[in-house]
């Protein structure tokens, strides 16, 4: 991922989060925050076209519940928000990937997108992702959200 791609990635993901879920993200360009969360969700998908690669997003479960709640217009403590948190994160990635590919390559090329896969992570899995030097970090309500774009 080039520096230019990283900037576009952060911009597009922030915009989708704001437009789709009314959640505001800040770029984390200073000291990275710790999180006390114990459970996390990680979603990833591939794309194939004039360029091929993958995009992934990981976040504390609480951020995903809030994402689902905002998409559905319910309170975060509503059971449906918890129930839809995995699905909501996958759909968020799907939308972000489509918007990102347009931002990077324009509206001409046709890309084939895979179906987003979502998995739960414990703290060990999360910390492994944070050590990946190729990822970017956003802050959403002071919680870290990890992004990674791989282009082959």
């Amino acid at each position: 991922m080039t520096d230019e791609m990283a900037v576009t990635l952060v911009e597009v993901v922030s915009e989708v989060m704001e437009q789709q879920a009314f959640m505001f993200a800040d770029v984390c360009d200073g000291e990275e925050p710790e999180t006390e969360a114990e459970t996390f969700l990680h979603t990833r998908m591939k794309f194939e076209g004039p360029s091929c690669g993958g995009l992934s997003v990981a976040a504390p479960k609480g951020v995903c519940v809030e994402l689902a709640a905002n998409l559905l217009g319910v309170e975060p403590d509503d059971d449906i928000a918890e129930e839809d948190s995995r699905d909501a994160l996958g759909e968020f990635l799907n939308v972000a990937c489509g918007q990102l590919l347009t931002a990077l390559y324009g509206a001409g090329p046709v890309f084939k997108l895979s179906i987003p896969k979502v998995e739960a992570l414990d703290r060990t899995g999360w910390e492994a992702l944070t050590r990946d030097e190729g990822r970017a970090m956003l802050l959403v309500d002071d919680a870290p959200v990890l992004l990674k774009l791989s282009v082959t």
Partner: protein
Amino acid sequence: MAYNILVVDDSKTVRRMITKTLGMAGIPLNELYQAENGREGLEVLAANWIDLVLTDINMPEMDGVEMIEHMSDDGMLKTVPVVVVSTEGSETRIEELKQKGIRGYVRKPFTPEAIKDVVEEILGGQDDG
């Protein structure tokens, strides 16, 4: 006149969002059907009278393009208006979908107003006809 609308999307969150939008928009609904992919969508279409289909593209088992192609090949189903609601941003792909007969396209992330407007435009047009 109340309408039967089919929402096809593998994301239950999106199906819930669209369902809520249609309900809040005041569009007269008789039945709102849901399907998780194109194959399920075709099964619903085969068993029920549907006035409008709102469908995603990128779905497992059978994607939205294949479902639309099956509908185009069917004498009855090809008259059912289809609106694609997708993250697809390729003008080439969207033009291909228009050639296959889709009546509208809403890009994700969508606003409730965008869904409401396209549904009202198509179903209102049916009333006029």
